[in-house]
């Protein structure tokens, strides 16, 4: 699951961060000890450390330490807080001026200036560079240097004059001169940032080590070092956490939560994440395109029970819409009460029989339920297929690796329809409903060869509502637009909402000040906290 961050963070920035925000002082942590090493277990191996191209949440753990973000979202409120940018002014319909903190230095001694900010953002936003993070700055026209510590962000005409949706780790600021000197490939393997920790080494398959930046401008980081250890087997990661081999485990299965909670030296912090998992219908398929089929599939399963059986009520909650409960405009209650369908096998059987009689469900046809190899989604796919079979519809679960799964989901010139009826998929986004609704359900993103809108939902009114939300700053109006759009999407039954993941980590009690974030990041020293460890 790739980390996606707030495309439209800027709306929040304007609403909460208008003119002259004061710098935020890092709160003192009573009894904090300076020194020590923190070891973090990471579920996957690392791939890219250049924030301009990094698009994995696991790589972001290291980027969080080595780089400073342009702004940062508070983990509790998701409100933007100053970081490299200390304040901003909305100058016009399409122009926002950012004032940078002065005296920030990169680890190689270079000053962080507006040149570096403009270089970073313009590089990402330049389609010629093919940055995986391009879409996160798709609203930006250009970044312009005004003076050494002032940069203007110009937005495209079709976007409202909001302060740009800068994420934290993907729009971390890179040193322009150093990058141009060493080249992108070398910078990716040995990054230089301005963050609280300096990159030390990357031992392939073993660990990445960062150490304290003694000259960090914001606060003196409490930790000496952070070691990131990739441990792909979750059961082994739990053993490492239990034995003290690691201090933080970035994941924990539901079956281990109670066990670790019972240990007096392990905490299990949890927070609703900004993720959404669903089984979507292939609306291009002649079978799934029939709304009766979609409703009958919905009615074939007790979805509350199914989700509970997988997550035990601990690491996942039933979803009723795409926007997670942690975000505004989620409208979960209304969707649950007015759109979600209760299990009704009799009704489902009747509808399936009707569809068979009409030839919509051809005789001998086996409905294909595709799923990634993730055990949770495979389990849910199996529950769905089993219930369909019980209701008279032959069904099979087809677990696939990412490669062939994406080939199918993205469609192709040779297979524009896609040989499947249902597919489990997941998405993680930033702190704006746009990040879910636009990518997953706007017809812009139903493109053969690359499709986030994998269901191929094409409802003009939904497009209009989502586009309209781009053009207004009125929060109430935006919320209303998103609510309307989401209701239309799910009344169309384009997808059956599955679950929202509850971010669950295992943290040794020797670690103090760590805050779990719905954005899945792994900040240790930021404007609002400074993690420390006991000896």
């Amino acid at each position, binding site marked *: *699951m*790739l980390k*996606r961050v707030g495309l439209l963070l800027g709306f929040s920035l304007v609403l909460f961060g208008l003119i002259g925000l004061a710098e935020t002082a890092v709160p003192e942590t009573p009894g904090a000890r300076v020194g020590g090493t923190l070891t973090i277990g990471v579920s996957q*191996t690392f*791939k*890219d450390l250049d924030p301009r191209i990094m*698009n*994995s949440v696991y790589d972001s753990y290291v980027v969080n330490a080595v780089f400073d973000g342009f702004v940062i979202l508070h983990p509790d409120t998701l409100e933007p807080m100053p970081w490299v940018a200390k304040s901003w002014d909305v100058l016009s319909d399409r122009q926002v001026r950012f004032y940078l903190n002065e005296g920030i230095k990169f680890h190689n001694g270079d000053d962080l200036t507006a040149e570096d900010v403009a270089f970073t953002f313009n590089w990402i936003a330049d*389609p010629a560079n*093919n*940055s*995986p993070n*391009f*879409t996160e700055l798709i609203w930006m026209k250009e970044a312009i240097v005004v003076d050494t510590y002032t940069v203007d962000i110009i937005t495209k005409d079709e976007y409202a004059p909001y302060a740009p949706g800068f994420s934290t780790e993907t729009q971390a600021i890179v040193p322009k001169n150093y990058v141009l000197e060493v080249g992108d*490939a070398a910078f*990716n*393997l040995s990054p230089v940032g301005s963050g609280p920790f300096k990159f030390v080494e990357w*031992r*392939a*398959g*073993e*660990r990445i080590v960062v150490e304290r930046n003694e000259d960090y401008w914001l606060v003196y980081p409490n930790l000496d070092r952070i070691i990131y*250890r*990739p*441990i*792909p*087997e979750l*059961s*082994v990661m739990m*053993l*490492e956490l*239990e*034995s003290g*081999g690691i201090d933080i485990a970035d994941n924990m299965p539901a079956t281990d939560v109670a066990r670790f909670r019972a240990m007096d030296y392990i905490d299990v912090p949890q927070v609703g994440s900004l993720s959404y998992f669903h089984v979507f219908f292939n609306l291009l398929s002649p079978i799934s395109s029939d709304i009766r089929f979609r409703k009958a599939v919905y009615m074939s399963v007790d979805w509350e029970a199914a989700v509970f059986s997988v997550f035990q009520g601990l690491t996942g909650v039933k979803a009723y819409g795409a926007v997670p409960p942690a975000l505004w405009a989620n409208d979960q209650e209304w969707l649950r009460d007015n759109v979600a369908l209760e299990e009704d096998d009799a009704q489902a059987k009747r509808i399936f029989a009707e569809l068979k009689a009409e030839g919509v469900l051809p005789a001998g046809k086996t409905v294909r339920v595709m799923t990634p190899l993730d055990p949770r989604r495979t389990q849910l796919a199996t529950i769905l297929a089993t219930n369909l079979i019980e209701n008279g519809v032959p069904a099979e679960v087809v677990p*696939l*690796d*990412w*490669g*062939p*799964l*994406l*080939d199918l989901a*993205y469609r192709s010139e040779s297979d524009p329809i896609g040989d499947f009826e249902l597919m489990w998929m997941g*998405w993680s986004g930033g702190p704006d409903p746009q990040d879910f609704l636009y*990518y997953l359900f706007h017809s812009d993103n139903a*493109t053969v*060869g*690359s499709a*986030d809108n994998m269901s191929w939902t094409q409802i003009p009114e939904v497009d209009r509502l989502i586009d309209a939300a781009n053009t207004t700053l009125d929060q109430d109006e935006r919320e209303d637009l998103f609510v309307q759009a989401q209701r239309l999407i799910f009344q169309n039954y384009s997808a059956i909402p599955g679950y929202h993941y509850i971010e669950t980590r295992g943290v040794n009690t020797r670690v103090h000040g760590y805050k779990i974030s719905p954005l899945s990041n792994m900040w240790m020293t930021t404007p609002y906290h400074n993690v420390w460890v006991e000896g």
Partner: protein
Amino acid sequence: MFGYTVRRLVQMVFVLFALTLLIFALLKLMPGDPAKVMAGLGARIETIEAIRVKLGLDRPWPVQYWRLISGLFNGELEAMTYHKPVWTVILERLPATFELGAFALIIALVVSIPAGMLSAIYRNSVLDYTVTTVALMGISIPVFWLALMLMLVFGVILRVLPVSGRGTAIETVVGRWSFVTWDGFRHLIIPSVALASVQMAMNARLTRASMLEVLQQEYIKTARAKGLKERVVLVKHAFRNALAPVVTNVGMQVGTLVAGAVLTETTTAWPGIGRLMIEAISRRDQAVVFGLALFLAAIYMVSYIVVDLLYAYIDPRITYD
């Protein structure tokens, strides 16, 4: 013998060439577009296309094949997702696999050969039954399960060994080696015992069977009748003759230990080439998969050649010329 060796090496070249074609074909037939996987979920079609062009995945298959082969042999083949040459990616992980394989082999031999010998000598005794039973368990128990149990018992419950990963390593001109440090040695124990378990069991069984057969031979009776000490009879005469099939088996295990430690490395988070293969496959890094598959094939072939030569050395009756 020299001629035989040269012939085998020449054969190896032809076999490797044939393997390059087979591996390339399998890579191309593997489902899933590598460019889409590398671009990640939500990538623009232009980004996917750019990756495809940059990595030469849009070129005709013969062109792609030539690029892989020539790049591999001139050392310039870049990994698709590791931002380094393929040989660098492989060689930086190789020492970890070598030391894991070597330790596993040493453990397997030190335990299994004496156990097999004693089991044969004291046939049908409690010792024999114990060795046979333990060997059967060793063959039957999945390596990854054994590794997990060892981690649980020694790493979590007893807390005498690290649970997983590789310990402190020393940088040398031939790579980074961890067995030379105490921390590194401690990290080696669990994965190498787990990896050695199957080899231990098989070698013990094979040694026992081979010894039993040799001990029935007339020359053994003759040796005893001549009044030789039993130790001399067993070690100098019986064991040496029983060794041949054991050597063959061990030689074949060398290749397996280097190339087949995938499960052990993945379970114990050991950063070797077995785990690298899994990573590269899941990333669809065709360059690394291609280079690594050929490298591992070469390891197997060389180990088989060495075994054949060793066989002839042990048994002078064997000639190849």
